[in-house]
């Protein structure tokens, strides 16, 4: 067996180090609906966050105001230009986000799959800026 493979196996056994992932919750840009169904979904989302908090994997997160409240600053050629609206006009917009800690992409995907808010969730790993190497 290759020495490389032996190494990987040993290290895998010894160490599991957490990674940060950002989950972006994408919706129709209208914010949460006030209907009873919307409120029920909202309650499940709260529960999801509570559970994540209790597991110690939650780092931070926010629900965003509807996309109509967005302002974009562009730096085309240097001078900042302020405009109304999101950075890209789309039916799908970021409605909120959570930064979580997970051992690897599989764990992050499991957490994202349990998201009760519908729409879609984009999972992005965060760059690790910790100094040790």
């Amino acid at each position: 067996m290759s020495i490389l493979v032996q190494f990987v196996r040993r290290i895998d056994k010894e160490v599991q180090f957490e990674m940060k992932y950002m989950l972006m919750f994408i919706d129709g840009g209208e914010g949460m609906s006030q209907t009873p169904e919307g409120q029920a979904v909202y309650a499940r989302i709260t529960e999801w966050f509570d559970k994540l908090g209790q597991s110690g994997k939650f780092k931070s997160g926010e629900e965003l105001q509807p996309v109509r409240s967005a302002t974009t600053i562009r730096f085309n050629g240097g001078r900042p230009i302020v405009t109304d609206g999101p950075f890209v006009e789309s039916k799908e917009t970021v409605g909120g986000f959570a930064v979580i800690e997970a051992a690897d992409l599989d764990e992050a995907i499991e957490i994202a799959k349990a998201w009760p808010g519908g729409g879609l969730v984009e999972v992005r790993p965060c760059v690790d800026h910790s100094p040790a190497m």
Partner: protein
Amino acid sequence: MRLLGDFDLAEELVQDAIVEALEHWPRDGLPERPGAWLMSTARRKAIDRARRHTRLREKLTLLVASEPPPAAGYEPEDRLRLIFTCCHPSLARDAQVALTLRAVAGLTTAQIAHAFLVPEATVAKRIVRAKRKIVEAHIPYRVPAPDRLRERLEEVLAVLYLMFNEGYLSSGPELPERRDLARDAEWLASLLVRLVPDEPEPLGLLALMRLHLARAAARFDSGGELVLLEDQDRTLWDGPGIAAAGRLIARAATFRRPGPYQLQAAIVAVHSESRTWQETDWPQIAVLYELLLEQLDTPVVRLNRAIALRWVLGPSAALAELDSLAQELSGYHLLHATRAVMLRALGREEEAANADSLALELTANPAERSLIARRLAAEA
């Protein structure tokens, strides 16, 4: 956060901390709480080590994934990890295929490019991107947990079947130098069967591939033209190979967990075990398609079922089923080619010719083009 999985390592770290204490304390004086000092030093060392190891692991995963397999082979467990990493659902399908062929089957980038008729640079780019994502997104190098194994296995099977079809369906006499991807896929499937012996679907896929390969010799005539199943010289089929594949299906059936690959293999087995086209057990095939539809309700499966329906219920019933798929499969040449067959059986020659012309426009495969062209010529 689980930093350390084993006690020996923890002990080693505490020892490291004591060594550090022996250096520092005589020089800097005794800390206020020596015990706490030791623990926090050991913990810091653990974190350092964990970080170093995580990065080291990422690099090693990459190295393992980019090296062709050693001649002596990996340990089974490592091969299986590698397969699941290469076929991770977060990688694009073409990247999964390229990475699996490279890292598990040991093909060179040039061989993969040649097999898929794409530039070598394209394959190289796919592999580089996939490897970068494995590192950046921290795709784990391990076999999925038991509760996720079947779901992830489906992904692996889909990659292998796509590989096989690419090799098998697009193989033609005009490209004899093209690498036999179908054989590579079959080898990978047999590997998977050995690695995951408690799952029936890999057995089903392997049987399916072997049944196709066992009949490959009859697919082209001496002039290099594609021969339909109906017209194939069945004496050219590999009887013992077909029987062996049948035993794989029987073995899979003992698990009592039918799945799409087992059912597709069973359908092909019914065809393969029939001595002549006329003796084909169509009712059994139709039943197997019904079961398959329960597991895998796709327009293509419905199309294939319609072909069987022709021999059970007649061409009008088959045509009605095909027409219900017209919208979803309007860009699929086999829908039009199959419609042509049914229309011709019903004596609607002109419509049949139109359907064949559509099919001809929609396929690039030379063997299939030639077959449809011959059919159209026979009409004229």
